[in-house]
């Protein structure tokens, strides 16, 4: 009951601590402040996407198109900037397009009654194709050097990388929405029992469209951060990002069948993945082995989780 719930919630956290402990012994430079900030910055992109994915998975859905939305949103934002739009306006346009792409996913799933896996598998391809069409397969470069745009990916606030600030800010807002608003409660309810929610007067379609829209916005936000850091928008950016995002959500203890989970876990899950990547790099583990280790950790975490749940 309540007790097992707490153990289940602490589990991912303990896992993170354990991995950090092991890595800091194996690689002394791991705990340097600079390295930690570096990890956090690397994590921020995946974390932002995974936050959105948490909402979707809580409703019992899935979104495979996040990486493609990231790429298309980033390319259009970059395009707007090269076309002479003010960077802030360009970013807003990008985020709006993210919302539109997400809402489109949501509409196909709710009004078209297509399974989320299939719907977003299709739009993943469509959005990626549109990115390639728009960019003609080449990176968009020559972006604005305005402070506002450069800040997003490369700036610091009181010594903390701006993407990290963005991540924590988004985390705070989304945590609040999930925990304290009727929309957040609706997300859990729809995932827990859709028919009961509908009969209780919840607007199930609107909630679902809402979570996909949110994820579209967050994906493009991640894309803009990436664009600012690299000073260019890559047409292939974000490929396979959906896998890391889903992994972060699952590592955090959110159930893929919906209705059960929490966003704190997702943050921890994203940190686990980031810390592993970084630590294995520091130890010069070949990237081939890195994949094996990462997959193994995910499997282990989920197996342990099952054991506790039983």
């Amino acid at each position: 009951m309540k007790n097992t719930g707490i153990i289940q919630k602490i589990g991912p956290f303990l896992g993170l601590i354990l991995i950090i402990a092991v890595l800091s012994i194996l690689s002394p430079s791991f705990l340097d402040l600079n390295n930690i900030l570096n990890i956090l910055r690397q994590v921020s992109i995946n974390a932002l996407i995974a936050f959105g994915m948490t909402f979707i998975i809580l409703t019992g859905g899935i979104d495979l198109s996040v990486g493609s939305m990231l790429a298309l949103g980033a390319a259009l934002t970059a395009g707007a900037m090269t076309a002479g739009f003010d960077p802030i306006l360009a970013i807003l346009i990008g985020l709006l397009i993210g919302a539109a792409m997400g809402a489109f996913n949501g509409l196909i799933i709710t009004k078209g009654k297509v399974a989320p896996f299939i719907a977003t598998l299709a739009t993943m391809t469509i959005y990626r194709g549109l990115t390639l069409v728009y960019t003609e397969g080449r990176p968009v470069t020559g972006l604005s050097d305005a402070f506002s745009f450069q800040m997003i990916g490369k700036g610091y606030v009181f010594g903390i990388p701006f993407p990290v600030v963005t991540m924590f800010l988004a985390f705070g807002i989304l945590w609040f929405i999930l925990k304290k608003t009727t929309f957040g409660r609706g997300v859990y309810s729809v995932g827990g029992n859709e028919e009961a929610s509908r009969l209780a007067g919840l607007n199930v379609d609107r909630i679902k469209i809402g979570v996909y829209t949110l994820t579209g916005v967050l994906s493009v936000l991640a894309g803009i951060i990436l664009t600012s850091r690299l000073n260019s928008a890559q047409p292939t950016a974000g490929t396979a990002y959906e896998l890391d995002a889903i992994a972060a959500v699952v590592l955090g203890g959110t159930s893929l069948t919906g209705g059960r989970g929490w966003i704190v876990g997702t943050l921890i899950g994203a940190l686990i993945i980031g810390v592993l990547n970084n630590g294995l790099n520091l130890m010069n583990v070949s990237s081939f082995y890195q994949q094996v280790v990462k997959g193994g950790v995910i499997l282990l975490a989920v197996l342990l989780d099952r054991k506790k749940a039983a």
Partner: protein
Amino acid sequence: MSSSIIEMNGIHKAFGQVHVLKGVSFDLKSGEIHALMGENGAGKSTLMKILTGIHSKDQGDITYKGKEITFKSPKEAEKAGISVIHQELNIIPELTVAENFFLGKEKTAGKTGILKNKVMNEEAKAWLMELGIKLDPKKPASDCSVGQQQMIEIARAVSANSEVLIMDEPTAALTKKEIDVLFNVMGGLKKKGVAIVYISHRMEEIFTMCDRITVLRDGASVGTRVINQTDFQEVVKMMVGRELGEQFPERKGMPGKVRLTVDNLSSSTGVKSVSFDLREGEILGVAGLMGAGRTELMRALFGADKSSGVIQIEGKTLKKPSPKKSIRAGMAFVTEDRKGEGLILNQTVRENLSTAQLNQLSKWSLLRIKKEQASATDLIERLRIKTSGMEQEAKSLSGGNQQKIVIGKWLATNPSVLILDEPTRGVDVGAKKEIYQIMNDLTVKGVSIIMVSSELPEILGMSDRILVMHEGKVTSIMDRAGADQEKIMTAATGGE
């Protein structure tokens, strides 16, 4: 009667901090029907789950056919000759009737794993026919009513040819016709020497069918009685620890002016041109046999399914009805299938009690947790829901207490038209009386109630008027004064 086939002694069980069974003893003889009774949350289902290896016991011993034994899984128990019909339906909606019937014991061509679908369809059909149920075995279970699903489970358990059959509230979703057939079947099994544990909150059933009664209260055995050496009063007193008095309260409300009119309502789910009206402070009972379209009518009325026809509340027509609009117009709908449509099983009691009143519990979309907690506390008290606290998951509540959550969730919306579909399904005698009392109080305040029920005494005891359905149509609307069981049954079978 022969000696005991099952003996359970000093059984203890705790879930976390909550001590649910405190030294329960129970014995069952071959060829007897043994009633297990007790209030909601007394521990009846838990005791049977321990017997059949679903839960492990903390203490105590179980003897089966003279040997001490602990089953590690329900499968093991079934192999040893004990089958169970669980209180909560275990039907997989995507599978067909026959697939559900044979789930886990499919017939295959030799050891190949190739299914013999034709054989299974025929056998499932035959077993259901034996229970008087005509069902297409190839129909998806999701298209079956709760009652039909229940019959599939009963047929499945009966077909196992077990020596011990445990029935946890098998009749809660059934109408008189199926219950009569079921009792016949049980009588036959009894003659063959099968031992049956029968859990039910319907007293009349216990006294017509059972040989002995064991009563549990708060996880302890209160005693066992031979049926003809006890009576209704004593059993109730053993269960609740006090006398209950009259079951149905005196109806005080006087129906006022018309609040709801339904004109020519039809739906693709089988409702055919239904018209009726409902007054302020009135209770309209809705009776009919299984499959008569009662639940379908309620769903159409509430906007849960698409329908044609006119629904008016307080003179205003509901255009394109949907649950949301109906709720806004003052309707509430306590659904029949609590697991499928009523509860969010892995949410807490508090969260479940708020699902339908999120608007009242929030301001500018912000949830007001204090207010939510106050509302939950209030409802738990008002309905005497037995929980270890409002943070208990709905999943781990006893069946009757789950039912009370569904009722509580809708009472919280302060409806003016309350639709109750089998509201006392699985609810104990004491709680039933409390629900009747709540209904009565609501009507005094002017609330209009529609109550679908398969229990005729309940229909007759509570309704001002009774609407009877047959094959999707209304066959009769009668005043309580002129109604009796016979007239209702005649109308329910399509007669005049």
